[in-house]
Structure formats: C-alpha cells, structure tokens
C-alpha cells in the first residue's frame, strides 16, 4: 500500500512568512542600492524590513482566489443590469451626470493609482510591503476596469462619456484630478505610499464608499453600487495598509517623523480638494437625496479622524495642518463648486441645472449656517434667468490655483464673502493659490509645482486648438475651438440639462422611477 502523503499544515503566520519575507534575497551581481535606486532619496530610513507585517497577512494565492470570487459576483449584477435596461430605472435623467463626472474625474485616477503602486512595489527593497503594494496596484486596475465596464452601459444611451480619457487629459476642469494623479505619480515611493494609502484612502474615501454609494443605490443604479461595494473591501485593506505604513515608518527611525508629517499635511489637503467633486455630486447631482456632504463629513471624516489622530499622537503625529479649514469647508464647498460648474456649464462634458424648489429647501435645511445666506440667492437668480429664457454663461477662463488647479472659487475660513487669494514669488515669477495649504505645498517643492500646466493659461497661450486652427481669422470662436480640441460636442455633451438630448431621450423612453413607487 502506498504511503499516504502527509499534507503540510502551515499556519497563516507560517504561510505569510514563506510567501513574503522568505522570498527576499540580497543581490550579489549588483549592489542592492543599484537594484533599488529609489527608496532612499526621500530621506526615509528603514533599518529592519522584517518588522513590516501586513495586518491581513494576505499572500498572492489567497489574493487571486478572493478577487476572482468578487469579480464573478460583480459581473453577474453588471450584466443583469445591462440586460434588463437598468439605465431606464434610475431615479431621474439628471442622475447620469454623476456617472459622467465619475468616469471623467475619478476612474482615470484609479488607473494612475494602479501605475503608481506598481512602481512603489518595484521600488521598495522590503519584500512583504512590496507584495502588499503590488496587490494594491492590481486592485486599482480592477477598479478602473469595473467602473469602465459598469458605466459603458450608460455610454450606449447618454452623451458625456464617449471620450472620457481624452477629457481627463485636456478638459480644463479635469486638470484638478489629473494634477492630483500626476503629483502622486511623480513623487517618490514612500510619499506615494503614505500620500495615497493614508492621506487619501484612510482619511478621505469613506464619504465616497459610504454616503455617496448609498445614494447611488437609492437612485436605482444597482450596477454602480455593486462596483462601489466590490471596491470597498479592497479599500478597507488599503486604509489598513496606510495606517500600518505610517506606524511602521515612525517606529523605524525618529527622523522619519517630520517627513511623514509633511506628507500627511500635503496629501490630506490634496485629497480634500479633490473630494470637492464628491461633495458636489452628493449635494447637487443625486436627485433622490439621503445625506448631505456635511453630514457625511461629520460622520465619516471628522469624527473618525479626530479619534485616529488622538491615537497617533503617541507616535508624535498631529492632525494635518488643513484640518480646521477643511472642517469649516463642509458648509461651503459643494455649493461653491456647483455654482462654478453651473456658470461654466457650456465648457464641460456633463450637464448642469438649477435645483428644483424642493431641492433648494432640502439644502436650506441641511446647511442652516451657509445656504440661505450665501448660496440660495444666486441659484434663485439663475432660475429667474431661466424663466426669462436666459442662462448665465461665464465668458472668461478662470484663474486657477498653481497647486490643486481648482479655479479660485473657495472663500476664507468662516465666511462665504471673500475669495481666498494667496501668492508667492519663485525664480522671479508670481504664483497664485487658493489656500495657505496649497501655497505651502508649493513652497516646499517650488521646482515641482512651478512646472504645472494650468489649463486656463494653456488656452490663452493658444495651445488647445487642433492643428491648423488660427486665432486671427474672421469669426474665430476660441471656446468652440477649445471644445473641438477636447472632443467635447457643443450642445450635446454640455449646457443645461433641461431640453438636452439626454433629458428628451430619457423622457421619450418612459424612463425614471414612478414617484409613488419610489416613495415606498
């Protein structure tokens, strides 16, 4: 009789050690510093990579198994949604504009994150962390693909999605998102790790996955919400990795503290500015409302953030420098952003509109300290213009912050009255900012941020026209020429939602939720 082969029973701990730390070797043909040339120049010191422990103890074999299961479940829903014409069952045609902005501004960032973390994985000589970041890189690629697949069903029926990657590269209002992605991508591996995993994932993605995704479900988009949920379990892992990375690096060397704190200050503020898009989606682009941006901020950012930094204080960390301003901004930023994009609505690749009266009332109730005082009167003015057959269209190109690239739409802390301006000089040139924190990010690395490609300036330099287009010809229309260059179709992709092709189609298809049924 054959001898039975004893199965090796590894504990999770053994398996993790075997599949991560045990894979390491010191190179002999080339010095380690030449093989890993990027993990020392930022000034971070690591003395013992063996101390890195992934809290999930995830190994590659388990990773692919889990992710494969999640993909199967997700695509069952996405396919069913498409086959059952799910796009007709969303609450209101305006909702689709949320998906447009998502695939224009957020989805390309997932792809950048995938590339960013692939390079973090290649750059670090600590094997276990290298494996964890490679999984994160694969996660981000998966999120990019999932979002693209889910939204592609809507692309068959609606405008405003057909050239999203080109718009990410060229449309002026998306440079906010592109500059964020490229800022991370051009940073060193440790900054990328801390900036994206901790600054963005850990501190600021909860409103996206909790409050915004609930609203997406509430508006009948089961496809997008499934994409959100499948990504959420990955992001939970990324958040934990971000916290562990911070703790690991702080424990490795006391000199790491000032560097890590500077990155937390920077990436909290960069991420906070980027989340202005989410704030606007939540308060203005979700037709059936659940929770305001401010409520989501209180519950998912401010409260857990206070608790987290109380815990991290024992390691010497303090809250990010922009914390107070960001918490004050919860009363304002969604309104300031919608006001800006409404005014530039003829230059975008999504539709804007004036909220209906019941929606204005909801905003008044949710924002008692700011909405009626500062923001409702201007929206009511736009409604009056509509009633007279007119619409506000900003005729200029907006002044942008050199760091975050938002137009200067934000006001000083505590008030909606005064636009915040900051400026500084570098190498004989003046640079302008939206806030103290964007100015400080610039001043820490002026060589980097002085190279920013600001869309408004590029337009005025004549860089945003198709080949052969000349400014000095009769009947030249700068705005039309720039939209052509970006492949945004004037009158189809942009302008007011009312009477748009999307609105008329949605109505003709008999789409939208029955209001009585929707109340159930």
């Amino acid at each position, binding site marked *: 009789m054959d001898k039975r082969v004893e199965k090796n029973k590894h504990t999770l701990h053994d398996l993790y050690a075997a599949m991560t730390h045990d894979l390491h070797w010191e190179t002999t043909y080339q010095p380690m510093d030449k093989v890993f040339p990027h993990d020392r120049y930022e000034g971070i010191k690591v003395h013992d990579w063996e101390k890195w422990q992934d809290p999930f103890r995830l190994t590659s074999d388990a990773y692919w198994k889990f992710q494969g299961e999640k993909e199967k479940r997700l695509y069952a829903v996405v396919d069913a949604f498409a086959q059952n014409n799910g796009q007709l069952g969303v609450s209101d045609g305006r909702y689709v504009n949320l998906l447009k902005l998502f695939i224009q501004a957020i989805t390309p960032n997932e792809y950048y994150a995938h590339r960013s973390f692939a390079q973090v994985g290649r750059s670090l000589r600590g094997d276990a962390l290298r494996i964890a970041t490679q999984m994160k890189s694969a996660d981000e690629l998966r999120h990019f693909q999932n979002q693209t697949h889910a939204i592609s069903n809507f692309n068959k029926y609606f405008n405003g999605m057909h050239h999203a990657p080109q718009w990410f590269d060229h449309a002026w209002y998306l440079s906010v998102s592109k500059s964020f992605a490229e800022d991370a991508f051009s940073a060193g591996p440790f900054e990328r790790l801390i900036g994206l995993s901790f600054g963005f994932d850990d501190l600021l993605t909860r409103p996206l996955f909790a409050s915004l995704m609930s609203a997406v479900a509430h508006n009948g988009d089961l496809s997008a919400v499934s994409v959100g949920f499948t990504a959420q379990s990955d992001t939970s892992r990324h958040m934990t990795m971000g916290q562990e990375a911070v703790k690991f690096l702080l424990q490795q060397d006391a000199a790491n503290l000032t560097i890590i704190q500077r990155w937390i200050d920077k990436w909290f503020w960069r991420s906070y500015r980027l989340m202005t898009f989410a704030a606007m989606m939540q308060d203005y682009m979700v037709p059936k409302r659940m929770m305001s941006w401010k409520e989501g901020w209180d519950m998912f950012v401010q409260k857990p953030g206070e608790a987290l930094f109380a815990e991290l204080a024992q390691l010497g960390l303090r809250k990010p420098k922009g914390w107070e301003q960001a918490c004050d901004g919860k009363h304002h930023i969604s309104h300031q952003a919608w006001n800006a994009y409404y005014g530039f609505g003829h230059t975008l690749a999504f539709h804007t509109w004036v909220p209906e009266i019941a929606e204005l009332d909801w905003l008044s109730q949710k924002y008692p300290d700011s909405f009626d005082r*500062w923001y409702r009167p201007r929206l009511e003015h736009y409604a009056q213009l509509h009633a007279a057959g007119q619409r506000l269209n900003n005729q*200029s190109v907006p002044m942008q912050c050199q760091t975050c690239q938002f137009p200067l*739409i934000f006001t000083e802390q505590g008030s909606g009255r*005064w*636009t915040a301006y900051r400026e500084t000089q570098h190498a004989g040139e003046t640079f302008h900012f939206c806030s103290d924190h964007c100015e400080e990010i610039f001043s820490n690395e002026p060589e*980097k941020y*002085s190279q920013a490609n600001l869309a408004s*300036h590029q337009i005025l330099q004549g860089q945003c026209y198709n080949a052969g287009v000349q400014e000095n010809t009769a009947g030249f229309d700068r705005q039309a020429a720039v939209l052509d260059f970006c492949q945004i179709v004037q009158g189809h992709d942009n302008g007011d939602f009312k009477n748009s092709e999307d609105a008329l189609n949605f109505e003709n298809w008999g789409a939208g939720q029955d209001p009585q049924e929707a109340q159930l």
Partner: protein
Amino acid sequence: MSVAAIGSYEHSTHDAVKNFAHPLLYVAWDEHMIFSAPCCVTISLSTSLEDVVQKILPELYGQHPQFKNINWARVQWFKSATMFTPNMTASLAEHGFTHKSVLRFRTPGLEGIRGSCG
C-alpha cells in the same frame, strides 16, 4: 526647501511672459461670485485703467444685474490685497501691474444678488 530627487533636477515653467501674446492679468469683482472665480485675460500693460473699465469689464461682468449700477467714481481698486488710488488715464504698468498681477475692484453698496456676494 527644495525638491528631493535622485539626481540634478532640471525644469522649466510654462507661464513665462514670453509664452503669451500679451502679459497675463487676473481680474476680479469682489463680492460677486456668480462668476465664481477671478478671470484670466491677456492684455497690454500700456492699456489705461479707463480702457479696462470701458472695454474689458463689460465683457467679463456685464451679465450681472448690478453691473450697470456701478458708480465708477466710488469704486475701490486693489492690486492683489493692496488698495491703490486710481488714475483712470494712467496705464496698468504705471499702476505697478506686471505679468500675472491681480486686479480687484470692490463696489461698496453693491454686494451681489440680494447682498449674498453672488
């Protein structure tokens, strides 16, 4: 501080004055935020303040219902955060404006739609 890099860090900026047909000027009407952000224009610095008022501002801000009510004799002028006394026939250069300066004006008594700074 300067940028951390693995070698020498060569770079160039995109917004030097030579890259524009005319210098860049940022213009803002304080407390009127239906326009949401200051505007970028390119303009010869030999342009007089009078010409800015007559030719540039109506195009940028004429859509605002309060624009026609501005009493230009009472307008307060700022270069960035610093108030200056205007000489309407003097040029922007004579007022100290250079490439990428900010020209702001404030209209006391006119503070946006229903006083909301909109």
